[in-house]
């Protein structure tokens, strides 16, 4: 019996994603600066308008504005800017790194790890020949990889960057 193997190859990363991530990082940076500047300006204006009779009200209003604008900046920082920054760094690493190909059976796990500076990754179990290993997947791209498949993956520093699914699996 002759088996005819058709392999479909999928790239998880593309140059547009890097550009888009760089743009997102820039937008987040600008938004953070704008919120910080607006908050500071509002606080300065409140200080200028302060008199002895409205002292208490102005103090707590200024503290409120300062806290809210600061919290907004912190939120943008950890929810948008830092992930985008780490995403850019990660994608450049993937772009410039040396690729290795592993052929075997792959199973996406539910283990999600957070690495400092906003990189989250998902572990992928790989069984090839007599060996088993844990690879990792950039979490934002987790849905792009099938839950289980037989085929091949290309990795850079253990990060899966492309995969091929064996149609006859």
């Amino acid at each position: 019996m002759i088996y005819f193997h058709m392999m479909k190859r999928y790239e998880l990363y593309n140059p547009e994603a890097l550009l888009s991530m760089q743009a997102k990082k820039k937008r987040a940076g600008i938004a953070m600066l704008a919120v910080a500047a607006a908050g500071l300006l509002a606080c300065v204006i409140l200080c200028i308008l302060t008199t002895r009779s409205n002292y208490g009200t102005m103090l707590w209003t200024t503290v409120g504005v300062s806290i809210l604008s600061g919290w907004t900046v912190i939120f943008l920082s950890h929810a948008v800017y830092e992930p985008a920054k780490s995403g850019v760094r990660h994608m450049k690493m993937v772009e410039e790194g040396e690729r290795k190909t592993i052929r075997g059976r792959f199973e996406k796990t539910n283990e999600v790890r957070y690495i400092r500076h906003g990189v989250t990754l998902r572990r992928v179990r790989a069984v090839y020949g007599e060996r088993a290993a844990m690879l990792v997947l950039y979490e934002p791209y987790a849905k792009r990889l099938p839950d289980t498949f037989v085929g091949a993956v290309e990795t850079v520093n253990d990060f899966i960057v492309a995969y091929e699914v064996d149609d006859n699996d």
Partner: protein
Amino acid sequence: MIKSLLRNLHRYVFWALISVMLWAWIFTLLLSAPEKNKITIYADVPEIDGNALSIELEKDLPKGIRLVDAKTFNSLLFQQYAVLKGDLYLVPESDAETYLPSFLPIDRAAFPGAAFYESDGEAYGIVLYDEQAGLITGGRYVTYKEGERCFLFFNKDSKHLGAWNGSADDAAIVIARHFLTLR
């Protein structure tokens, strides 16, 4: 999202604390001025609404004066040396003799119609509160010790007593006159 917030909770708490401390400090600076630009009133009385009294006295500030700072002796706590830098003092009769060396004898003619605290024939203080005479000066702002007369004294080292002690301006005397009109 919630995990991310919790992971960064320390940053939010830290910023809130920094904001409170920073702006409290800046606002303290907003309501301060060098000695030459302010009149300080220390009151040895049970209670004083320093903020309201300052607002009232600041309605008509002499030239060069930016604010009036009115507070009790008790508010000084650990910086009691600061009391020596006051311009005007509200002192009850029982303590007047103790502090007298720090006060300047005053020109009676500057306060016509006023009753004075006298020592060795010289006038030192102006009567602010005298229950028997029915006199209560600035009663809306100052709570005097019942049954004891209280006086307004002038610090002999004040920089705002004009010709009395060779100061550049007489802002403390102007403020004292304003205070004496308060009921």
